[in-house]
């Protein structure tokens, strides 16, 4: 039943210090949980149990409550992202232009359904519209955008992003 990330937690001291600073600033602030989770995700890239426990403890709420909020909003993620975060738009325009095929090709080449590859280099997510329907179908790798894609371009794009 438990959802254990396959990736062991290896947060750094710098990250922990930054989180403590954020949480100190949110102490006794009403409705602090959401901003705390957002900033924690900015620091760590995701929200593992170790991070949620610190948030729960410092803000004086239970871990179950923190977890409830973290699983309510789809923008929060409990699994880490890869060095290269790949997003494929499955919004209406991209989808009718064949982004489903692009997504399937990425799944095939990366060998994962979604989530992160075992070597932690790539993570794959389906996204909603990212606002450039003129370029449909679209995928992003970190902050780079690739448009008007066909599936035979995928191997070439992935080759640019090496471990």
């Amino acid at each position: 039943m438990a959802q254990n990330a396959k990736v062991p937690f290896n947060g750094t001291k710098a990250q922990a210090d930054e989180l403590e600073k954020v949480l100190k600033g949110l102490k006794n602030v009403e409705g602090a949980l959401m901003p705390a989770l957002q900033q924690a995700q900015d620091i760590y890239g995701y929200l593992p149990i170790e991070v949620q426990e610190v948030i729960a403890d410092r803000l004086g709420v239970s871990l179950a409550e923190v977890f409830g909020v973290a699983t309510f909003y789809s923008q929060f993620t409990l699994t880490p992202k890869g060095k290269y975060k790949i997003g494929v738009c499955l919004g209406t325009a991209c989808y009718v232009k064949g982004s489903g095929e692009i997504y399937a090709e990425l799944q095939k080449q990366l060998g994962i359904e979604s989530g992160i590859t075992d070597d932690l280099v790539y993570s794959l997510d389906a996204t909603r519209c990212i606002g450039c329907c003129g370029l449909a179908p679209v995928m992003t790798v970190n902050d780079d955008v690739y448009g008007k894609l066909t599936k035979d371009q995928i191997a070439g794009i992935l080759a640019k992003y090496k471990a």
Partner: protein
Amino acid sequence: MVNIKINNIPVSVEEGTTILQAAKKIGIRIPTLCYMKDINAIGACRICVVEVKGARSLVAACVYPVNEGMEVFTDTPKVRASRKTTLELILSDHNKSCLSCDRNTHCELQDLSYEYGCDINRFSGEHHECEKDVSTPYLVRDNSKCVLCRRCVAVCRKIQEVGVIGPVKRGFKTHIGCAFENDLNDSPCVACGQCINVCPTGALHEREEIDEVRAAIADPEKIVIAGPAPSVRAGLGEEFGYPMGTNVEGKMITALRMLGFDKVFDVNFSADLTIMEEANELVERIQKGGKLPMFTSCSPGWVRYLEYYYPELIPNVSTCKSPQQMFGAIVKTYYAEKLGVDPSKLYVVSIMPCTAKKFEKGRPDQSASGYPDIDAVLTTRELAKMIKQNGILFNELVDGEVDSPLGIYTGAGVIFGATGGVMEAALRTAAETITGKPLENVEFKKVRGTKGIKEATYDIGGKTVKVAVASGIANAKKICEKVSKGKCDYTFIEIMCCPGGCVNGGGQPIMSSVVRENTDYKALRASVLYKADKKCGLRKSHDNPVIKEIYDNYLGKPGSHKAHEILHTSYVKRERYKK
């Protein structure tokens, strides 16, 4: 004051009053499902909807505040149709195995469905996926019967301030669970069972041990011994239609015998034994400079809380086993020897108002004879169920008497079930031990009553003893904070996990939210115990003749080496989360 009309009846109420409260004032019940006074007014279930003249849609009466001149209608065809449809939608994703459900006839969803004449199969659709959580020895969560009212969450977060459960995910996937989808057993749950008591359906119930007990009774090799806790006699009658606050001790004893128990003793007796050891420990700590303040250790939910959340205070907890565990321990050592039988032949069943006791029996360091002190724990509800299953007409029974010798108790033992009872019982014995003189007045009234935290100062033999009594974990937490920061001068602290003490334990008969709101149930059940105490000829544990006999001929004196081996235990620090 605000003046409004409900169903054309004028009523004036204070500003900020909800429609639900205003209607109650003039004798109108608006049905509710998720609502619980003070802790869960969230307008989630939409059963309490009413019509407000001029409003665009129906409004939820439990959260809607009154306005001057407002006209409310609580029972129009539109309102009734809406409630009915809402119920039918809830039922469309409900495991409707009502016929043999644990809550059949005690289910608020069932009552409402009947009241609104619902077609339980009107909508057929997807059912949310869920597995039963049977990970703990005390509780079963079956989310296929959950209506997402969040009453369990509210009691866990707001009354107990433990907060190990909550809504997880969103929309159709929403379910009540623990952080990181851990099993309850891998969460810092204190096992109080208060969530069961407030659940309106059969989604939560205790882990039953009826089959195990029946198997032992059927086994000719086993001598099966029953020991009911003080609070069981104060609650059991409710299951058979007696008004709340009826003492059914005599009928309970007869029923236990009819169920096939070979001996019917009483945990009131071992409560007396607990006092002997605990008062002695307190006096020793005071006189020899031991760790103070000393906490009581009778409530396994409380002990579990401390182990999870304040492990640094473990040295402050009395090492005495709880009355349940002392009961089993003395049965399987002293009594086994007296009978001349091997303790493996004895099967000890305690009957408890409590779910945490099911966890406690499996703790390490609880097998004085080499065999577990306690073999099975039945809740008050399970005992009622067995009595009904066996066709025993409880209300027709004549009063029975307990067996000798481990059924003899004093008034001090019987008040254990109410918050402040252990404190009072311990003070009766400690005071006489310290002063060496008989008490003029055995009643320590300042520690009585259902208040969450009580404090009192007593002069005992020229020494000032400041005591505190807390019930409910939210209150226990306040005391723990003070103690861990060294900000208190208490000598002795009694803590009970459940608000009001064991009479309101997680294994007691179920009350609907309406009964809960309108009855002073903690005080009513506690009154049974205080009345029983008053009627007892002996009211101090050390006056119990059986206790005297056991110390004279078996244990030596309180706190002796042998007493420690049999009647004391140890505690462990617990990790809150499995990673």
